[in-house]
């Protein structure tokens, strides 16, 4: 039995397609890729900002031993052609920060000072197709010593 499609129904098809495309694009933006920067597992202070001591704003001389730049990234990047696609997923957790900081500490007297905490979210798109979504956050700073460093350090 054949079915006769009215002109109005034919007009609805591209509209439906556009609507579905809009929903897909919208939902792809809703998918959570959030990243967290913290150092909750460290047993020594990981200081931020100009005040380094409780109830005291003294400035003791510190000597930078080394820099650090640690990033926690969550991303989905899709690439490929007509026949197959490859999706690269990177999932890193906040524990990476604890592990990297622990690795850089030499002495129990070393101090960790974070100079900048950075965050970034970006979507790379080609027309309406977004093939990459990256969220990352992290810390930049230095490991400081209270005594002058003999080699390779700067005050």
């Amino acid at each position, binding site marked *: 039995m054949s079915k006769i499609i009215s002109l109005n129904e034919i007009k609805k098809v591209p509209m439906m397609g556009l609507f579905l495309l809009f929903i897909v694009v919208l939902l792809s933006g809703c998918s959570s890729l959030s990243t967290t920067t913290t150092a909750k597992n460290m047993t020594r202070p990981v200081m931020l900002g100009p*005040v380094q001591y409780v109830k005291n704003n003294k400035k003791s001389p510190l000597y930078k031993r080394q820099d650090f730049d640690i990033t926690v990234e969550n991303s989905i990047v899709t690439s490929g052609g007509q026949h197959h696609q490859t999706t690269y997923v990177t999932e890193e957790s906040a524990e990476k920060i604890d592990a990297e900081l622990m690795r850089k500490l030499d002495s129990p007297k070393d101090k960790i000072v974070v100079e900048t905490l950075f965050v970034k979210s970006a979507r790379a798109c080609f027309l309406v197709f977004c093939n990459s979504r990256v969220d990352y956050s992290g810390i930049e700073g230095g490991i400081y010593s209270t005594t002058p460093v003999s080699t390779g350090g700067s005050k």
Partner: protein
Amino acid sequence: MKKIYMSFIIGSMLIFLSACTVGARGHLKFSEAKYPISLSPALYDQNDNVLLKGKQLNVVGKFKYEKRFWGLMYSWIRISGSKDVDEAINDAIEKKRGVGLINLAVTTDGCLSNSLMTFPFSILPVMPGCTDTIIEGDIVNLK
């Protein structure tokens, strides 16, 4: 022949322009903070001793602040500052009569509007992108 070259150049430019990035980045330096802030559950006292949560430090309140960072030029240019975060931290610690903030955690996620800014709007470098950030921590006092 000239027309073919012109079409090729215009076509290439359109393809190049239709590929783009939408987003934002933000920097937090806490340079206006009046109290010590730590990413870990520990702070220093004035004699350089480590004060730990649960031992020398008592949690007297929670801090939570939501911040949206905006960016231009495909996320390269930052247009949001972070002075308001420092002020919110100072106010929260003062209100709770605390001595500092520990366990600072910053969670970031792209905003929904980044998805809505896809083609054709995203090819314009002046089209803003954003990232939502939640800043949390424990306000502490000395035991």
